[in-house]
């Protein structure tokens, strides 16, 4: 059985997903404010890193990175509802790209696994 990352299409899938995903996130009124005044190119690189992790790709993304990266946002009110919104946007991105049910569930589980780090709990 090949890995999730291979089944989903590897780096090519991350590339295909990142523009769609970040666009959905910026258009999502529930979370868009957290992305005000960020450098879009830097943010795209970070989103690719996140998607690589969520797609089960080789990554040394640590919980500490997630904590540091979101600390200021938690102070601004980032909570579970916002993580839920991101996961919804991720799911809709995967559906748009025609990713299979099984893989979608695996990706969402991986993405959800960093929830506590993101929310600094």
């Amino acid at each position, binding site marked *: 059985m090949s890995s999730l990352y291979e089944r989903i299409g590897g*780096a090519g899938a991350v590339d295909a997903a990142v523009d769609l995903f*970040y666009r959905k996130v910026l258009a999502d009124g529930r979370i868009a404010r957290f992305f005000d005044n960020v450098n*879009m190119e830097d943010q795209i690189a970070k989103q*690719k890193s996140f998607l690589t992790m969520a797609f089960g790709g080789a990554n*040394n*993304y640590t919980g500490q990175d997630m904590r540091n990266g979101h600390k200021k946002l938690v102070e601004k009110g980032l909570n579970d509802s916002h993580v839920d919104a991101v996961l919804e946007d991720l799911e809709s991105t995967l559906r748009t790209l025609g990713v299979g049910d099984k893989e979608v569930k695996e990706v969402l589980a991986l993405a959800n696994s960093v929830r506590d780090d993101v929310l600094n709990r």
Partner: protein
Amino acid sequence: MARLLYQGEPVPLEAGEDVLTALLSAKIDAPHSCRAGVCQTCIHRVVDGTPPETSQNGLTDAQKKLGYFLPCICVPATDLYIVPAEEIGDSYESVVHEIEYLAPDIVRLSLDHDPDFKYRPGQFIELIANKNLKRHYSIASFQEASDYLELHIKLHPRGQMSKYITEDLKIGSKIYIAGPLGTCIYEGIDPDQPIVMVGAGTGLSPLVGIKREALHRSHRGLMRLYHGARTRSGLYMHDYLEALSKSHSNFDYISCRLDSDVEAERDIASVVLDKETNLTDPTFFLCGGPGLVNRLKHDLYMKGVSLKKIRSDVFVPADRSD
């Protein structure tokens, strides 16, 4: 055994070791995060040598061409001299060839420089009057077709560099330049696809350079240039660009002027968003103040343009960059 130089200093490199590990072992405070070539946090630039192709995975064509690479996935096969990505680099002596007023408050400065100083139009340089007076300016000339480095400089009533240029610099004066830096260049562009260039004020400077390179490289797709300024004189290459649009069927020039108190930069963005309906094919070049560039980048992206197809250079006023 490949050798590694960082900012001119040798850094020990074990066989098979990646550059990031070597930098960190040498107590160099290199920013990093994923260590898997994905997040691009550790990006550096090669000033001498060729980074392995695999260490440039995920970077733009312009970044690849200009020697950017990711140290965390770079195991060098040959000697590399590297610097941090935003390091401006060595300085070179240059000599003022010409100072010409393009408008009452815009000067074209042409500099005779060391042929070893290589650049691409759309990049920027640091102009160094003295150690306390340095400013960044974008490049309007195309090196293969011009002996002189051309900069368009907006003069500010109380600007120190403006005063220096207008009062102290003469033809034949020596002045230092450093760089170049920046990735807003004509690289990796399909010659049959459209390019759309949008600039306000002296944001025209890099775009004129990019246009020159595109024409030199026989770009066949449509080239559309939007230039916004508050006054007629601010449209400082109007006649030249208009003539060019008449002589080249695939070059289109659209000027936007506002004399009212409405912010010109906002208006040119609206014109572009209205007029540009093909959002799939063109590569967009956006140059000017943060108000224009960041708004247009956001709006074009949200309308469906891939960020890979948007190249930009934000001009930051000196009082904020100092």
